[in-house]
């Protein structure tokens, strides 16, 4: 026993080394063989939180690319939404009642220039004729309507913002479908006025106004504003509604250009009808 103690004290350094080395190697063999994440790995709380903190820092470097990627994905998803398809079951005798034909496509775009404090505001987007953008296409943001494409160059387009005196949007009450014309209420970039809403419409503060789908720029049901106050002027038969715009024009970053695939068809038909009307 005594000899053992002497041996231990004399060789303690080597024995300690052996013990630690054995421990390390057994860890190595065991964990690497089974590929099991033990308590001592990046999976534990301490290093996990440290790695997360590092990620929180470094992810900012990739935000730009990440945003672009997400916007692209959103555009794709919106193109596949039910609202993007036109009900194609015109004939009741047709059994194929689940067929929808695509009417709207969405092209994602980044706002490269914007203003909110002028009387007539324009937005510039980084998409142009090369990406299939044409004048008079609608532009929406995830929150609501933004404007209508005005001029198009090869890779850019200017958009007549909703904050423009010539910009009128046909909007309806989401609840009962009565519609009117929505104009900007300058100079406040957060509010608009809805004119010509029939006096029989029932509404209350907080009701949502959505696009009516009339015209050919915007699909039906895109949010536009929230009803704030409403009144009927004396001698008038229509409501004048003060609405809060759902789109925050000052924070506009990524938007979608709406491509109406049936626009030409619709316009041609309407033109024909008008012309035949004149002939009479």
């Amino acid at each position, binding site marked *: 026993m005594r000899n053992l103690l002497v041996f231990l004290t004399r060789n*303690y*350094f*080597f024995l*300690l*080394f052996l013990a*630690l*080395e054995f*421990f*390390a*190697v*057994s*860890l*190595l*063999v*065991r*964990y*690497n063989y089974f590929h099991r*994440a*033990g308590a*001592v*790995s*990046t999976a*534990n709380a301490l*290093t996990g939180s*440290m*790695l997360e903190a*590092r990620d929180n820092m470094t992810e900012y470097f990739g935000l730009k690319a990440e945003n672009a990627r997400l916007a692209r994905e959103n555009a794709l998803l919106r193109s596949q939404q039910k609202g993007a398809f036109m009900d194609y079951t015109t004939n009741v005798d047709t059994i194929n009642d689940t067929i929808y034909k695509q009417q709207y496509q969405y092209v994602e775009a980044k706002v490269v220039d914007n203003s909110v404090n002028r009387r007539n505001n324009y937005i510039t987007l980084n998409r142009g004729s090369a990406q299939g953008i044409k004048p008079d296409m609608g532009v929406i943001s995830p929150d609501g309507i933004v404007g209508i494409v005005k001029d198009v160059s090869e890779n850019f387009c200017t958009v007549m913002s909703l904050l423009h005196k010539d910009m009128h949007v046909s909007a309806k009450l989401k609840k009962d479908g009565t519609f009117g014309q929505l104009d900007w209420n300058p100079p406040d970039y957060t509010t608009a006025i809805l004119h010509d809403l029939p006096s029989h419409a029932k509404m209350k503060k907080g009701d949502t106004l959505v696009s009516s789908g009339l015209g050919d720029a915007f699909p039906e049901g895109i949010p536009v504003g929230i009803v704030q106050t409403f009144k009927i002027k004396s001698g008038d038969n229509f409501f004048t509604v003060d609405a809060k715009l759902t789109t925050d024009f000052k924070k506009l970053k990524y938007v979608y250009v709406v491509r109406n695939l049936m626009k030409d068809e619709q316009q041609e038909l309407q033109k024909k009808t008008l012309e035949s009307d004149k002939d009479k």
Partner: protein
Amino acid sequence: MISDILRHGFRFLVLVLVQGLVLKNMELGPFVNPFLYVLFIIQLPFELPAWIALIVCFVTGISVDVFYNTMGMHAAVCTFIGFMRPALLRFMSPRDGYENTMQPNMQLMGRLWFISFAGIIVLIHHFMLFMLEVFSFHDFFWTLLRIVLSSVATLVFLLVTQLLFYRNKAAE
């Protein structure tokens, strides 16, 4: 004494974190993997009892393992470094032995001593580490190339760190 412990503890934290959070994610190609944290072991004071140094080395290795998800690999290598360190120190001791004021850094021990001491430790460390990682003699020369290039990279990092942090005193 307390300030020494604090100083080394701080160095330990910084080097392990830099290794685990920064150097690990540096893209320097498949052949260059610098392990700067060895600097902590290199800079352990001369007068530190060997058995404490051994345990400290083991802890250093296991801390790095946590970041690399290589349970026990760095620990095994570092424990071996801790084991051979006293012998290496004895072998490289100055003619009159180490003095109390001496510390294993470039400024106090001179460029030649520091580079050879650090070089030997880094080479042994990297050799064992990469061999353990591959765990075979298959493609031995590729492994050897990784060992050599990584050692050079580690040494460069190490010297730059030394020059950065001991520059002022050296200039005096």
